[in-house]
């Protein structure tokens, strides 16, 4: 079981290239979504405040 997981992580000795090539884009996509969501929530709060 553990050996299977280690083999999966190692990806035939190319794990570094494969995991980094997924990690960087996915982190960037997630960060952009997060930044936009936070900004939208802030604006919606301000609009609510002004309406009150």
């Amino acid at each position: 079981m553990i050996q299977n997981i280690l083999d999966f992580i190692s990806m035939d000795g190319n794990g570094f290239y494969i995991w980094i090539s997924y990690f960087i884009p996915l982190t960037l996509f997630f960060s952009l979504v997060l930044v936009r969501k936070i900004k939208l929530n802030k604006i919606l709060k301000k609009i609510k405040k002004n309406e009150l």
Partner: protein
Amino acid sequence: MIKYFHKFANPVRFLKLAIPIKKISGIAAFFTIFIGLIFALLLSPPDYQQKETVRIMYIHVPSAWMSLMTYGFIFLSSVFFLIWRFPLFLILAKESVPIGIIFTFSALISGALWGKPTWGTYWVWDARLTSFLILFFIFLGLKLIKDTFSNSSKGNYTFAYLSLVGGFNLPIIKFSVDWWNTLHQPASIIRTGGISVSNEMLAPLFLMALGLFFLFIYILLVSVEINIKEKSLINFRDSLKNN
């Protein structure tokens, strides 16, 4: 068609339509990318030549497709803005730029990481890689104009015209592998002889591409909502000051 544009050029009407689409595309993006990753990293077979490194293709190729699609979208929105002068087209074009930068950067970085184990180098100055790097710089130029002249009419037109000029690079990127001898492989999906990739590999490729497409729609609509609501907030504050 112009009537349709007129109807949705109104920001309030546009947001009424955009908010439900945004929610659906957000959920669709999450699930499609999640399933795509399972196929890409676990279920798809290794390549007979490239072995496990072929898995980089499932993030590299969809990112590259999406960066080209994003630029195509900016190009068309700018054309529509210059013809019909609806500000909504300009907002759509401008808000697509940061998404395009991230897709292009992802394609470049994953391509470099794929190049090292397969070609023995992270980078070569061949036509495909260089034209793609130029696309990245065009995106950065558009971002610079967008941020520098955010509220001037001159800045808006400079943005629209520059995005039209940058459009020359799209066919160069697409046909660079046919026009010049490149280390980058020729097209294997959109080509005259038909698709040359096995179905087991096509499934994760299209799932990831679809997931990134939904993600593009989601981020774009959130950004447009921010832009429109920010402007309405500024207008509201200005009206308070004037009173």
